[in-house]
């Protein structure tokens, strides 16, 4: 397409002046090739960038117009492409808060064109994406860790369940085997005397009773796990009173002394559950006693700002340090059923209950020197 020079100049000037891409025309001084190229012309977009960079528009050096964008090596690059032609992408530079990408290409005769692109927005978007990505990754890692933790928990629960099922079946089968065995002997052995027959029948009966107790305890334990417990402010004084009264009924003819000392605050808990907890501890205290000794029990409370500890102390047989954690586990029994009867569920119930009430339980004890159980609850407000 033919065009006269005037029209062409006018058109190119307009284009240079109006295009939104920042353009500069510079010239490398052949006498001083190491100096920064001199600015021949800038289009308005390039002036704007120079303004943003607080460039010195009165000077002629490119490095002064665009401080920070062109380093000392720029002249060398220009010299290199002035012979061979072509363009060089100078990459991205950060000046202040903004990013610019610059390209330089050789025109002719020591003149060069420079294209500036403001990449600040894109850069910001990229940073934002990177940040979001990092956050996603952090979340994913977090999630993964939580999954791992939960899996571990579930595995532990599974192991616990396995051992629970094993213990339940073992402890339930023992009385069944006894009933079956004695019944077989009773049926088949005609030579048994009356005393032996009665004795065997009594054993069947006591096996059945033991089994019943175990099932009741297991039900109580599982109820505690499932039942909704509404936490309330409870008078610990009333709890102690009620438990003491129930102990009197439960202990039958067994003699013991119970000393209740000091004040009992209000705590966060559940009255009936707490009475059961305390009663279990008290029943244990009068059960695990050296032969012939009279159980001496003492109950008191100590308070801190937020918590209250209820202590139950006895003069019983005590618990060796190495067994003190075990006793709270279900079906753990430190002593033979003959010396100290029980289902092995009582303290497990106590711990489960205290945990459900948001409290803690522990014991200080030495063999032969009695035990001091404590439960810690939040104070009522």
């Amino acid at each position: 397409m033919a065009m006269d020079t005037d029209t062409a100049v006018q058109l190119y000037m307009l284009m240079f002046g109006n295009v939104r891409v920042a353009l500069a025309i510079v010239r490398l001084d052949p006498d001083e090739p190491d100096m920064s190229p001199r600015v021949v012309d800038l289009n308005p977009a390039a002036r704007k960038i120079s303004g943003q960079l607080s460039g010195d528009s009165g000077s002629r050096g490119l490095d002064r117009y665009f401080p920070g964008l062109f380093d000392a090596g720029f002249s060398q690059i220009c010299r290199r492409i002035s012979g061979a032609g072509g363009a060089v992408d100078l990459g991205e530079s950060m000046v202040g808060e903004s990013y610019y990408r610059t390209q330089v290409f050789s025109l002719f005769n020591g003149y060069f064109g420079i294209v500036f692109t403001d990449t600040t927005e894109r850069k910001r978007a990229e940073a934002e994406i990177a940040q979001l990505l990092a956050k996603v990754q952090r979340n994913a890692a977090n999630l993964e860790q939580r999954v791992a933790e939960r899996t571990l928990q579930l595995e532990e629960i599974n192991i616990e369940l396995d051992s629970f099922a094993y213990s339940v079946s073992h402890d339930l089968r023992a009385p069944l085997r006894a009933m079956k065995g004695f019944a077989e002997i009773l049926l088949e052995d005609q030579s048994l005397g009356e005393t032996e027959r009665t004795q065997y029948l009594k054993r069947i009966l006591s096996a059945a009773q033991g089994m019943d107790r175990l099932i009741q305890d297991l039900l109580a334990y599982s109820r505690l796990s499932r039942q909704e417990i509404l936490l309330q402010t409870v008078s610990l004084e009333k709890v102690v009173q009620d438990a003491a009264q129930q102990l009197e009924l439960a202990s039958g003819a067994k003699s013991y002394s119970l000393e209740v000392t000091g004040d009992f605050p209000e705590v966060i808990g559940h009255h009936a559950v707490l009475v059961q907890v305390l009663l279990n501890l008290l029943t244990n205290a009068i059960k695990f006693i050296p032969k012939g000794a009279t159980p001496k029990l003492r109950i008191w409370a100590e308070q801190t700002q937020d918590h209250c500890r209820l202590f139950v102390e006895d003069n019983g047989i005590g618990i060796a340090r190495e067994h003190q954690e075990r006793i709270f586990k279900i079906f753990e029994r430190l002593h033979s059923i003959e010396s100290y009867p029980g289902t092995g569920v009582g303290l497990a119930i106590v711990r489960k209950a205290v945990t459900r009430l948001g409290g803690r339980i522990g014991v200080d004890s030495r063999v032969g020197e009695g035990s001091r159980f404590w439960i810690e609850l939040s104070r009522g407000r």
Partner: protein
Amino acid sequence: MSYVHHTVLVVDNNEDEAHFTRLALQRVGVISPVQTVSDAEEALSYLTGQGSHADPESRPPPVLLLLDLQLPGISGLELLAWLRRQPVLKRLPVIVLTSAGEPGQMNRAYELGCNSYLVKPSSFNALLVMMQSLVQYWLSLNENPEVWTAAGSLRHADSAPEGAWRRDEADLGA
């Protein structure tokens, strides 16, 4: 067949089960009174003649130990491990007689050196059959090791011809 000088020591925490084992052993001809202890600690004092078992009259030396693994306090496996560490008592044949246990329990018992592992049957008649085979093998067929002196106390480890065996052991280790 009856077995006169064959004291069997039963270690069982459950009185009913101990009673069945005792009764079954009697029924299949074990005339020497079957001795029963209810936990590992009592078994220890029985075997070493201490505490309530200091009187040799009250503790005829056992030729066989029937061991339940579910014991309160020191477990049956722990008792077995202790026994196998003793210089002379480690010779005593130990037959585990226990209710079906946790997986791994049986292998552990064999590793610790039990001589046989039996699971308590759920019926008394089955227990009778089991005890019948048990005494036929362990009290009649089997040659029992020397554990006790004629007076009923533990032998000294040195008095037994053990040197050759020790050398073998050393060779195996090398």
